[in-house]
């Protein structure tokens, strides 16, 4: 489907992010279940998901709250897990920085792994998109995802029973992310970036408060950028 209008961009966004439905439903339900087991009411659990919309950070906060960690440590750790959102924000800026402020604010609230990854993939694939088309695509990409995030948080909270471990839902997220990343390896520099990030993340796996992910991400980005510079020099292109 070619994007010619804002509406067709919106619809393509909806279509392209429908696979995430398979991920969001189990993940949101899981958060709902875990939160109610930790003693949160259904309303508190929903408020958590609506205000924060970041599953990994929410689960981190919940875990530390149960361990009675100091409030400041809970906040700092959960925000560290979410630091990648700042990287996403920076990465989106060249594409949607020209949009009206209210749209950028709304998009910021709705920036999650899924909306970011699907949108950036599309913006890179089709550089001719206008800013309104890009915003349309972005809001399309969150349409199948965010409402289900709210709804299934509540469903999980109400069900309140433990999903059997044999469902292996813990692995829904890694599989979904890997499937999404694979088509993005377009150049050798992308491969180097991912490889370095993976190695550093494994070496830094014991660094507390998930800071290892930030360090590894930064290392991967530097490796990718440096490889790009080397490759363009080798090919005699001035950058």
């Amino acid at each position, binding site marked *: 489907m070619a994007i010619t209008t804002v509406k067709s961009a919106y619809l393509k966004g909806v279509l392209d992010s429908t696979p995430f439905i398979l991920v969001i439903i189990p993940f949101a339900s899981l958060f709902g279940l875990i939160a109610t087991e930790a003693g949160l009411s259904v309303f508190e659990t929903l408020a958590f998901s609506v205000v924060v919309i970041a599953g990994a950070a929410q689960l981190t906060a919940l875990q530390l709250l149960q361990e009675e960690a100091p409030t400041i440590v809970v906040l700092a750790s959960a925000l560290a897990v979410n630091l990648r959102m700042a990287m996403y924000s920076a990465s989106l800026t060249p594409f949607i920085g020209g949009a009206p402020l209210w749209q950028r604010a709304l998009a*910021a609230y709705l920036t999650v792994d899924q909306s970011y990854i699907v949108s950036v993939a599309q913006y890179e694939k089709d550089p001719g998109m206008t800013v309104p088309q890009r915003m349309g695509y972005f809001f399309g990409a969150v349409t199948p995802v965010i409402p289900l995030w709210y709804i299934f948080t509540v469903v999980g909270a109400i069900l309140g029973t433990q999903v059997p471990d044999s469902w292996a839902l813990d692995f829904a997220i890694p599989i*979904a992310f890997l*499937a999404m990343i694979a088509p993005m390896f377009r150049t050798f520099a992308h491969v180097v970036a991912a490889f370095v990030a993976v190695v550093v993340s494994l070496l830094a796996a014991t660094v507390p408060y998930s800071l290892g992910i930030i360090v*590894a991400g930064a290392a991967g980005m530097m490796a990718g*950028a440096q490889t790009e510079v080397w490759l363009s020099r080798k090919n005699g292109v001035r950058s």
Partner: protein
Amino acid sequence: MIDKTTLWIIIIGLGLGSFFLRFVFTGLVGDRLMPAWLLRHLRYTAVAVLPALVAPQVLWPKATGGELDPARMAAAAVTLVVGLMTKNVLAAIGSGAVTLYGLLYLLG
């Protein structure tokens, strides 16, 4: 038992903090041009951060208490390879899920 006041401080604090992280560049930088070196780094955000997020969970899954798990490692590998070959997200997720459940059943 989680203290209710603390809980709401966390929910609101985490909400405000997360919004700030998401808004810091799109909102405050806007359409001002960013330097080429920065843009060059940003091109690799997704392919660096997401594998870094996933890799420890693939090798040391929480569900097995951090023990190496052949089913999860194989599922991750199949997902990645199918994704690289087909560029099709659903095909990659599907084959990864089949591998995971198949191996969990066989090795179970």
